């Protein structure tokens, strides 16, 4: 379709929504552009990020892990230390503030692992907004405790039992809800996906990750890292971790997709590694689809990475060669989950464990002078029950 336009990253992105929703997207874009430039808005955002979410979080030198792997120095960006336990709060606070400025009283959101749902429910509790979270039924089961957390925070969680009952169906329902209720409702998208302007909004609010990490690594090492690693589902933590390094060509940007049971089994959620371009959920991106253009069922041990598509900017970074996109299996992620827990005393989210797993693969092949930054996007408390069930059954 049309290229090199606002809202596009190369040929990806765009706004493929029914006319009804287009107006809503235009309004959100207009207000986002205004808020971004507004010192008052930014002051308020910074206040909540610092005083409420606990930013900045550390860039921690993982000395034990580095020694154990024997190779590149590994630094961990500790997003899991944020309030609510993941990077999702950065964007939830930002978008909730936009919604407030638009005079919306009701927030809806999709969630996979529940981290974005919890972050959104939290922001809604803080700002006094009604909150409805859409979650695939399958996900509500594997992340039952997060569902309960959202309910404690006053949100209503709607379990979706269509299709695979994962993030795809949750986004479908949220978009339909928005089409019905946009007068009072704001759709707070958590992944770097969806129609324009959402991918740009999510990137804007998540780029605080790499803004801090860059300052922190320069202070600690006096130089830029050799690579930044982050897991990629929709790609919000990864685009945030990459954003301020994109123009530093010496820094490799490595996104790690979930290979599930293996790319060749068809049971994965790795569109950049095993998908092709298509249009879904209002934007153009790499997606996992069948020969008729319908999305295929996806699989990942990690609910937060279990999505058929991926952010448009990641699709573009892949094509342009600026980003490298690799994949690790469920088992490799699980091994890395234990590795980080036992060497550093940090239990990562299963999502983040994918990034750790790839770091564990490449660090030993690198020299001790080289530096890796791994984004630990979330903490693993939410996954303990799932892993308990998996290992004790």
């Amino acid at each position, binding site marked *: *379709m*049309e290229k090199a*336009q606002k809202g596009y990253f190369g040929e990806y992105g*765009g*706004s*493929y*929504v*029914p*006319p*009804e*929703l*287009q*107006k*809503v997207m*235009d309004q959100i874009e207009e207000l986002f552009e205004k808020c971004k430039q507004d010192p008052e808005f930014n002051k308020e955002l910074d206040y909540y990020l610092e005083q409420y979410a606990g930013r900045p979080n550390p860039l921690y030198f993982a000395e034990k892990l580095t020694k154990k792997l024997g190779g590149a120095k590994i630094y961990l960006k500790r997003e899991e230390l944020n309030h609510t336990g993941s990077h999702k709060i950065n964007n939830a606070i930002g978008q909730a503030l936009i919604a407030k400025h638009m005079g919306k009283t009701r927030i809806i959101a999709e969630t996979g692992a529940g981290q974005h749902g919890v972050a959104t429910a939290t922001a809604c509790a803080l700002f006094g907004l009604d909150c409805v979270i859409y979650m695939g039924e399958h996900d509500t089961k594997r992340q039952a405790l997060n569902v309960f957390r959202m309910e404690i925070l006053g949100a209503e969680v709607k379990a979706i039992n*269509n*299709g695979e009952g994962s993030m*795809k169906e949750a986004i*479908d329902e949220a*978009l*339909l809800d928005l*089409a*019905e*209720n*946009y*007068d009072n409702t704001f759709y707070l998208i958590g992944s770097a996906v969806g129609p324009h302007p959402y991918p740009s909004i999510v990137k804007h609010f998540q780029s605080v990750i790499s803004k801090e990490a860059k300052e922190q690594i320069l202070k600690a090492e006096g130089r830029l890292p050799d690579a930044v690693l982050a897991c990629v589902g929709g790609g919000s933590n990864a685009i945030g971790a990459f954003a301020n390094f994109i123009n530093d060509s010496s820094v490799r940007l490595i996104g790690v997709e979930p290979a599930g049971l293996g790319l060749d089994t068809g049971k994965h959620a790795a569109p950049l590694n095993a998908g092709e*371009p*298509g*249009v*879904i*959920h*209002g934007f153009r991106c790499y*997606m996992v*689809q069948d*020969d*008729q*253009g*319908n*999305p295929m069922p996806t699989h990942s041990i990690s609910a937060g990475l279990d999505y058929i598509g991926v952010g448009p900017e990641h699709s573009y970074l892949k094509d342009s060669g600026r980003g490298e996109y690799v994949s690790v299996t469920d088992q490799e992620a699980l091994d890395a989950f234990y590795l980080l827990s036992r060497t550093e005393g940090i239990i990562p989210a299963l999502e983040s464990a994918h990034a750790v797993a790839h770091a564990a693969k490449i660090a030993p092949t690198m020299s001790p002078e080289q530096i890796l930054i791994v984004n630990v996007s979330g903490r693993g408390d939410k996954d303990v029950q799932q892993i308990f069930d998996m290992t004790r059954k």
Partner: protein
Amino acid sequence: MSLLLEKALKKAQNLTPSNPLGIGITPYLMAGDPNPETTLRRMLQLAKGGVDVIELGVPFSDPMADGPIIQAAGQRALEQGMNLTKVLRLTAQFRAQNQDTPILLMSYLNPLLKYGLESFLRDAQSSGINGLILPELPWRESSSFQEKLKKYAPELTLIPMVAQTSSQDHLKSLSQAEKGFAYVLSRHGITGGDATILDSTLEYIRSLKEELTLPLYVGFGIHSPNQVEKLAGVCQGVIVGSALVQKYAHLDALDLPHEEKLKKEEEIATWLISLRQPTLKEE
């Protein structure tokens, strides 16, 4: 541009005993629900019954503009193995038996992209399709699509959609579309649901007339003669989707002898065309 469509739209304005309001009627069917043969039979029957244009939906797993009734119909069709290739076969079969009633294909973009846009456009034209309704394709981004349409399927018309929230820019760009009709959404949101025709809606449709020279066809939630009578004063036609799909779905769920089903199917076709009979009382 489709001559067949232009002819049908014009004919729909003629006042006749069976169309005293001079308003066009367009049923929407989901292709392949419950199977392609049934869809074909129903299309032929509706055409014979006097509908002016037929809108045929391509099933898709994530239909962003559709309510629960059409979503479910799409799901049933997909489970039956319906796909775009089979939809084109279906329209070609229809066209072999009916050369008067235009078919508009309503589809989400990804199945077309996957099929290959150029091949799709060529094949759509040769399979008897007369126009396309693409709810995800933003009109302001449709110029490259329109170029392809002109090149590969010059006999097809792209039908623009207009929402009450559509901006002036959107309307202005629509005035460039000179053929077919503008698909006007009667209400907020997604297909189906309750649609009381509010005075504000009538006012809005009237205001569109000042901007657009295209005939206006109103859809989303149309199901009663009352609605149609109200709308007849301000628009040229109505689209009946969810209400019809629902009736067919109920019928398909019944355990009846084939003959009985065919009879009920006739009744549904009669109901549909009677929507433009203002003398009939509400059920």
